[in-house]
């Protein structure tokens, strides 16, 4: 078992240095188009890779998760706020799971 405090130290120091070194040491902006483009796409690629398909196994059932996913995609498409999207997806998962319970008890 790895030490949790070592993990946290690595995370905190790495993240801080990424933020601090350029601000304190460097005095000019990156001009290289490839690097700029690469860094622009990183958050989207990382968040997308973390979201799908992981979302499908995040709840008790893949069906409720898929419904939650669909809800979040549709509301995001219509540019609803972060909180609205997140809570609506939760609400749909909750309702679908309760409905599945009722159906399976018949």
């Amino acid at each position, binding site marked *: 078992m790895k030490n949790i405090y070592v993990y946290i130290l690595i995370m905190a120091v790495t993240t801080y240095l*990424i*933020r601090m070194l350029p601000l304190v040491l460097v005095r000019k902006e990156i001009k290289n188009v490839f690097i700029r483009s690469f860094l622009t796409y990183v958050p*989207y690629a990382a*968040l997308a890779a973390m979201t799908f398909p992981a979302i499908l196994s995040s709840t008790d059932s893949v069906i409720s998760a898929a419904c939650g996913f669909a809800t979040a995609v549709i509301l995001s498409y219509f540019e609803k706020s972060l909180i609205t999207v997140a809570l609506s997806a939760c609400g749909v998962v909750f309702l679908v799971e309760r409905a599945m319970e009722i159906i399976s008890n018949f």
Partner: protein
Amino acid sequence: MTDKKQQFTHGVKDGIPIGLGYFAVSFTFGMAATKNGIPIGISVLISATNLTSAGQFAALSIIAENGGYFLMFLTQLVINLRYCLMSLSLTQKMERTSTIPQLMLVSFGVTDEIFGISAAKEGAVSPFYNYGAMSVAIPGWVLGTFLGALSGKLLPAMFISALSVAIYGMFLAIIIPPAKKDSAILIAVLLAMALASCFTYLPVLKTVSSGMMIIIVTVLVSAIVALIRPVTVTDPEGEDL
């Protein structure tokens, strides 16, 4: 009122909506951390020392899988590398009189949102403006984590199951609106999801840990899209935390 105080107050004002947003996001982070078996105090410590949603969230799976320390370093480096770009951009924006200790303190609060308000501010930015924004944003982030982690422990299983999609919902709300406007981002999102699916379901590929998968997919997709659709605008602003 002195100029420093004025700048600080201005920062606090602009930081309030950021703090509220952070509260919501970190609440879901806290719940996810508890779900991964991480103690509440540790979750709070992670949030207080890192202040980055994507990086912290990626770290959860590494900790849960007992992944290597180098993998943790690499993951944070790749996912948080964009802050390097923001800090570089901020060097042009901070008051010339800013001292090195001041800049070192400002660095801790370089998040997508705080960078966003600093970059949008007219003229040179005082470090005290950033301190002000950080003084509300950071407590929002830490408190949200604590309450989220606590809810993860206290709420009944049926609520936890439903609330588990919250963080993914937020991620989707961050990436989909810009993907709608910019087809290059749409390509990046779809390609990343497709590749992540390959790593989750295909034989051999699914033996790769999820922490490593995130690095491989992120680097590969960002490089491919950067080659086929280089960015021409000068604004390096990201959208998530």
